């Protein structure tokens, strides 16, 4: 399966379409960090929110860039389960590469600062929280992007609609006071937690919430793939 992950990743990176989400992500992060300096945990929390739709879009492009017949050839060669898993894994690896860029970016443009007041978090603690926030976004974004992919929804228009609904819904349903926050991945809650008092139990709860949401959406993706044949 590693060979198929590599083949799909290389196929994605060699097309010009891989640049679009990366550039969009950099523009969004540039705008974010251009507004002023923030401490790492707070900055990375918002960065993770911004990256969620970007990573979902990147996943959709990665899965869509492979011709349908090539996907079927891979399925014949390695079997249904491995073909599905290889696509999700390749998207996950691509997302981690983008996350790495997002983590380094604010240090290059001077968008982060160290502790200002005595009670502020240390830089390593802030970095760890920021890394956690970004890693939490990856499975949710990959799941949403996969659900929006051509192999799952069929037509291109439906895919864009799923992507837009998922991206906007994650922000709107995640606002403070939302009646159904569990319908969305906890990216907003993660940003709030990273900026505030990050208790261990809260971190654990948010992690489980993100994983459960991602698993449910991946389940939907696999069901759609099965229905699409």
């Amino acid at each position, binding site marked *: 399966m590693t*060979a*198929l992950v*590599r*083949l799909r990743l*290389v*196929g994605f990176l*060699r*097309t010009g379409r891989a640049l679009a989400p990366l550039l969009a992500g950099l523009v969004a992060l540039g705008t974010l960090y251009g507004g002023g300096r923030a401490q790492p945990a707070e900055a990375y929390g918002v960065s993770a929110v911004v990256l969620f739709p970007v990573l979902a879009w990147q996943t959709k492009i990665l899965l869509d860039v*492979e*011709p*349908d*017949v*090539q996907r*079927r*050839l*891979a*399925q*014949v*060669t*390695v*079997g*249904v389960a491995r073909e599905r898993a290889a696509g999700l894994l390749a998207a996950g690896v691509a997302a981690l590469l983008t996350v790495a860029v997002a983590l380094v970016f604010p240090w290059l443009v001077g968008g982060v600062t160290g502790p200002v007041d005595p009670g502020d978090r240390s830089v390593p603690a802030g970095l760890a929280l920021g890394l956690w926030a970004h890693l939490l976004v990856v499975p949710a974004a990959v799941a949403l992007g996969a659900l929006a992919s051509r192999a799952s929804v069929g037509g291109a228009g439906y895919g864009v609609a799923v992507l837009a609904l998922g991206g906007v819904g994650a922000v709107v349903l995640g606002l403070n006071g939302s009646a159904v926050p569990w319908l969305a991945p906890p990216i907003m809650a993660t940003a709030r937690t990273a900026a505030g008092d990050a208790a261990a139990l809260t971190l654990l709860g948010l992690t489980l919430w993100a994983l459960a949401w991602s698993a449910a959406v991946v389940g939907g993706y696999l069901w759609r793939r*099965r229905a699409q*044949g």
Partner: protein
Amino acid sequence: MRLENVWLRYHRRGPWVLRGVDVRIGPGEVAVVLGRNGVGKSTLLQVAAGVLRPGQGRVTDRPGRVGWVPERFPADQPFTVARYLTGMARVAGLSRAAADDAVTAWTDRLGLARFRAVRLPELSKGTAQKVGLAQAMLRPPGLLVLDEPWEGLDAATRELVPELIDEVLAADGAVLVSDHRGETIRLPGARRWTVADGALTEETPSADETVAVVEVAVPSARVASTIARLRAEGHQILRVRPDTSTDAPQPQPSAPPAALAPPVVGEAR
């Protein structure tokens, strides 16, 4: 391998493309799938290969290694021929050294050696089809599924297809092949499955079926179209040769006039 009462349709409320197909193919057997355009030949082949899942029924005892040559090779990919085939060989489970050896062997055999560094989108249709053939053969398949494999291939490679099929059969593999050009007459021992109205019927060969060779003379300008028409009607073109005054066929009184000025003579049966 056996297809047991296989039903398939592409959409929940769409028409059934396959209706209760029940058929078995064993090791060392080749079956030709025949039928008009759009009757479900490719669908049947894709169910057999494991690309499509039956809506009802099931496929049992499918060999572990399946080679599938799609009707149109997906050439819109950012790889060179060598990089793509090596990647597919690795996906098929070959080690790096074995993958390199297999790619070299198959590109040489299929006349792809000079295209190894060429990107897939730059290939002609026929050359891309050869890449499709190569990827299916990189790992010896227990089931080889060929969807119109002769389409777009040059004469030398068309001759090679029955050879490849024989090799798979000799290794106790099974082969399924669809064809609308009449090329499968090159597979004399093949079972013949006809798909019509979603159902599959198998032709039983008649023991007293004899074959005759007919020489036909046509103007040079109409050679290609005549060959295509004869093949479409299921005849096999044995050879095409320039006419000479010494061996030009004389029209028989009972036969219709073959041509006014026969500069080229072909044999068909």
